[in-house]
């Protein structure tokens, strides 16, 4: 790339940073404050942790779409892998110690995931964290050569991947007769959110693992 272009970009980026900094130092008082409103409505949200409340109830719609984004990324990887590999590569044989460790750790990680899912209602944690741990278990198993790559996921696997989103959608739509989309009746809020989170945990775990596993079989 031409040097003057580099210099120009660098200059403009620095200028932007400075402008941003200057702008941040000259901000007025907030016109609206949400923390108070969150706290005030926390009881009706079905969860005790404010971030989870925002995430799954007040702004649950964002999360619904976000799950779709995640699934979409996996679809993208699948789309590419259809052309990259003709057949599912068998897992490469790994060191027996690794395999043993993986066999030991995997159930433990599933347990941890379950805990994170449950604790999410009260403290930092929740479906994403849980799903991430699940995915890590999957990656570990793959690295140990215990899982095949997912070039062509079967229907069951696809169902598992879609489950979280479908459950979320069902719950979201179920609120329609009572009022609005994603409306949880206060009494049912807690179990519904747990249901959603459980579905999400499974799907997110599978999806995140899938992002790795789907491209794992590509030829090098």
């Amino acid at each position, binding site marked *: 790339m031409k040097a003057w272009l580099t210099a120009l970009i660098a200059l403009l980026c620095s200028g932007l940073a400075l402008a941003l900094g200057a702008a941040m130092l000259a901000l007025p008082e907030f016109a609206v404050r949400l923390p108070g409103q969150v706290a005030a409505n926390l009881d009706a949200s079905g969860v005790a942790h404010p971030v989870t409340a925002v995430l799954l109830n007040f702004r649950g719609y964002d999360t619904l779409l*976000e799950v779709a984004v995640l699934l979409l990324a996996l679809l*993208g990887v699948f789309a590419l892998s259809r052309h990259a590999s003709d057949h599912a590569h068998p897992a490469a044989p790994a060191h027996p110690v690794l395999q043993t460790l993986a066999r030991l750790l995997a159930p433990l990680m599933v347990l941890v995931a379950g805990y994170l899912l449950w604790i999410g209602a009260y403290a930092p944690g929740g479906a994403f964290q849980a799903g991430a741990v699940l995915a890590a278990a999957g990656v570990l198993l793959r690295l140990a050569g215990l899982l095949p790559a997912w070039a062509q996921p079967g*229907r069951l696997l696809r169902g598992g991947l*879609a489950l979280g989103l479908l459950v979320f959608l069902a719950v979201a*739509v179920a609120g329609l007769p009572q009022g609005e*989309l994603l*409306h949880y009746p206060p009494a049912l809020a807690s179990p519904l959110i747990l249901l959603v989170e459980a579905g999400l945990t499974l799907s997110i775990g599978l999806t995140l693992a899938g992002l790795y596993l789907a491209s794992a079989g590509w030829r090098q």
Partner: protein
Amino acid sequence: MTDFLDPLPWLIMLPLAWGTLAFVLGPGRGGRLAVAAIALQGALALQLAGQLIDSGARVYAVGGWGAPLGIDLMADGLAAVMLLLTQAVALPLAVYARGYFAASPKGRELFWPFTGFLLAALNALFLSADLFNIYVTLELLGLAAVGLVAIAGGRQPVTAAMRYLFATLLGSGAWLLGVALIYGTYGSVSLAVLTPLIHAGAPLAVTLAAALMLAGLLLKTALFPFHFWLPPAHGGAPAPVSALLSALVIKATFYLALRLWLELFAPLTTVAAAQLLGVLGAAAILWGSVLALTQSRLKMLVAYSTVAQVGYLFLLFPLATLVPPGTADSALAGGVMQAVAHGLAKAAMFAATGSMIVATGRDDISRLGGVGARLPLTLFSFGLAGVTLMGLPPSGGFSAKWLLLGSALESGQWWWVVVMIVGGLLTAAYVFKVLRRAFLPRAAGDRVARVPRTLEFSAFALALASILLGLFGAPLLELLAVGREA
């Protein structure tokens, strides 16, 4: 029970659901499901439009919380027009895609889930009244679009998808930074809450936010000179994908830019900034048209035509900024009409192009001889779509041009008139470059196969719609005015 059938949430939920199900079920059943569901979406959009005309703009509080704590959806005339456009383009294209992928199965497997998510993202974006939520829809839209570009695989599409991905990520990154600045300034991301707060002389952060969001959107809309990602992406994808992307995806970001400009950041807008956008639009018209004229590949020609047509959309900014209300209304009507007309026409054009490529087995303008004789309906559709793009009556493109020209002359900005007219002539030049080739007899050694009827008729339906829009555009403008009187 009436709430359960409220079209507004279903317009978002339905495509998400069928998109996911199509992934589970596979392309065959997924395709059938998709066609049925899109037809249903079309009915829902019409129902929503009817509601709006009867009782004015709607606000919908998701989860019942209401802004600023929760997320609001908002449906006004502009949103409803875009929703109608989306479903109207999607339905024939879905029919088309089933035929297309039967003839050319590359990329068939995941087309339907991507399309479902894409439509969900579009509908959600048009209805959203929350800046952060819009960010999520933008990302959903962007990733779905990138996935669709890459769907067929191969060096060229993957490169195009990569470039497109970076462009769209940079765009949404800028948007998100803008959102962060806005939230940091006012403490809310709800449009309804923010609109009364922003006024001339807002803090620097708001100006920065406005500039960042706008610039991000321009990048995603592929306005000249940020069109670099568009022709390869739209020109390399399978025909139904190109049609969806050209007709709808760039319209979504344009829609956002319009919303910001006319509503949220209206107090900040200046004539100079509007003129800058207009100049870029003009440059896009001329540059895109000239490049379309130089293409030897049919799909690249159509893709560059999109670059040019996007330019027309941005002429609306100088014509609607700080001018008398009547002029601004007519400019807005013209811009939106252009978006709708171009959406329908470009979808038709890409669909027709796809049929021609399927029929001739190659993407080469100089080898189109015989198409006119073998695929008259397809060529006719291409021609009708071309008529709309040229802005000849009685097409939607003409109505748009009429309104834009009228407001340009009323506001004394005659230079845009010149641009529009020259652009129209250049458009004619590249459209006829294709048509005249297709009229020629088949060259020895070339083959022109028949294509399934569904391909021909779905393209024709789209082209016809773009023409009929010109004859029956008045209801659309009536709908557009909903929520805009105040």
